[in-house]
């Protein structure tokens, strides 16, 4: 009997598939969890293929000053409304500190002045929003890899998580705070920097002051703004929504190289 039901289910499923594909308006199929998990296969495929072709250190294209966007569009939060952030901002971020912790040997706290005193890298790169637009800006900041070597990653560390000062979606359980994560390949990539300077000036609030991540081979939502804490972790499942980022928790790809 169960076989009959299974077969009937299969037929119902097949009919739904056929009708949904025939009509773009049929959204039942789009919303099914099984469909989503099948479609997700493509993300792993894209990541593995790109990583295979890229090697770990292939660089994103760097542009010249002449290529800079006249206006760099700000996206996401442009003014965090949390009181702690406003206090930092009103003191020109002199009291702000970046925490580096989690699975590291020597947790650290760095002030903005200390970060600016570290060796920096400058790069003129293109920022690609998942929506489709692009803007070119010049970023200066501390290579993340150098910082991670200073604090020393524990062997179990697999991902670097970036906690932010903006609550992009107000929720009761705090799951609306912006955060992002990357793996160690991207964390140690030479163009992955913690940028404190944009187009030669201190990073503006709309662009993530005082510090934002640049991970140049991925889309805009990976470039977390308003950084407060960097955490090395072994897995992403227990943080916030469990998918490794604010937008990832809302259905977007964790690997945003495409």
């Amino acid at each position, binding site marked *: 009997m169960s076989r009959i039901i299974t077969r009937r289910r299969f037929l119902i499923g097949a009919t739904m598939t056929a009708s949904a594909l025939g009509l773009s308006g049929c959204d039942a199929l789009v919303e099914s969890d099984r469909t989503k998990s099948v479609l997700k296969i493509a993300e792993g495929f894209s990541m593995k293929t790109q990583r295979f072709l890229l090697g770990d250190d292939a660089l994103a294209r760097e542009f010249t000053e002449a290529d800079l966007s006249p206006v760099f569009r700000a996206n996401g939060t442009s003014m965090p409304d949390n009181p702690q952030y406003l206090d930092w901002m009103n003191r020109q971020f002199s009291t702000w500190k970046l925490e580096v912790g989690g699975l590291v040997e020597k947790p650290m706290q760095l002030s903005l002045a200390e970060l600016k005193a570290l060796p920096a890298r400058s790069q003129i790169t293109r920022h690609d929003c998942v929506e489709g637009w692009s803007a070119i800006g010049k970023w200066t900041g501390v290579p993340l890899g150098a910082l991670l070597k200073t604090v020393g990653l524990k062997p179990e560390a697999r991902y670097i998580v970036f906690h932010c000062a903006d609550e992009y979606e107000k929720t009761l359980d705090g799951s609306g705070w912006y955060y992002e994560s990357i793996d160690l390949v991207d964390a140690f990539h030479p163009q992955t920097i913690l940028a404190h300077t944009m187009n030669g000036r201190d990073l503006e609030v709309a662009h993530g002051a005082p510090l934002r991540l640049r991970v140049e*081979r991925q889309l805009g939502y990976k470039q977390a703004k308003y950084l407060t804490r960097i955490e090395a972790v072994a897995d992403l499942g227990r943080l916030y929504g469990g998918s490794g980022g604010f937008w990832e928790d809302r259905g977007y790809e964790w690997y945003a190289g495409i």
Partner: protein
Amino acid sequence: MATIDAGAATGRTVIYRHSLLVRLSHWVNVLCMTVLLFSGLQIFNAHPALYWGQYGADNDPSFISMEAVEEGDRAKGLTHVGSLTFNTTGFLGLSEVDGEATARGFPDWLTMPSYQDLASGRRWHFFFAWLFVINGFAYLLYGLLSRHFRRDLLPAGNELTPAHIGHEIVNHARLRFPKGPEARHYNTLQKLTYVAVIFLLLPLMVLTGLTMSPGFNAVAPWLLDVFGGRQSARTIHFLTAFSLTAFVVVHVAMVILSGVFNNLRSMITGYYAIEQGDKQ
């Protein structure tokens, strides 16, 4: 015409026209291109403007854009193409979603999913993009090895003379389709169109799509130079999709006009009936 039904009772010859791999890859392609088009329009709607060059966002001049504007107490949808502006209310820029006028590039009946959901649109798009590429490679490999391209798609020298092509255009316009021995092969217009679609438009879709990927830019930065930047590639991707849609419309029209049953059967079973000369 000179051809006479010499003894053939039915006046028809049935030939085996499409091999299994051609038929299979054709229908997989139909599925892929359908999903890619509608999910692509969903993705486009997230930022319904196209630019030229390396960058492009709200403050940069766009080449094509759609928007909804308030005019008094009414809203209207506008589409800008270069310096021209068209009122496209109800279709582009502003259209009804559940009975309510909503600002969106393309209307809900053209996007997948129908409601605004970029994340889902991308998941569908990339899954079927992979399927499309795998299917395309299988077809290309088969076409080369089986000599399908050389035998069926490569126009012969004498088919490319202006007189011959002109003659075919006139016949097409009059809906006079080849019969008898001529119908055993694709005519020149078909060959040229299929060659353009298979070797130009479809690869262009894949390459411009890859050029929009920041990861793939690091793999193959030269693609940025080929297309003049990520935003140019995005524009070409859109225009090529438009061309392919136009091709499909004409293709389906021709399938219907030149014998829908026979054509569909040949792309499903492989067998195609040829009328011998003029109909009695």
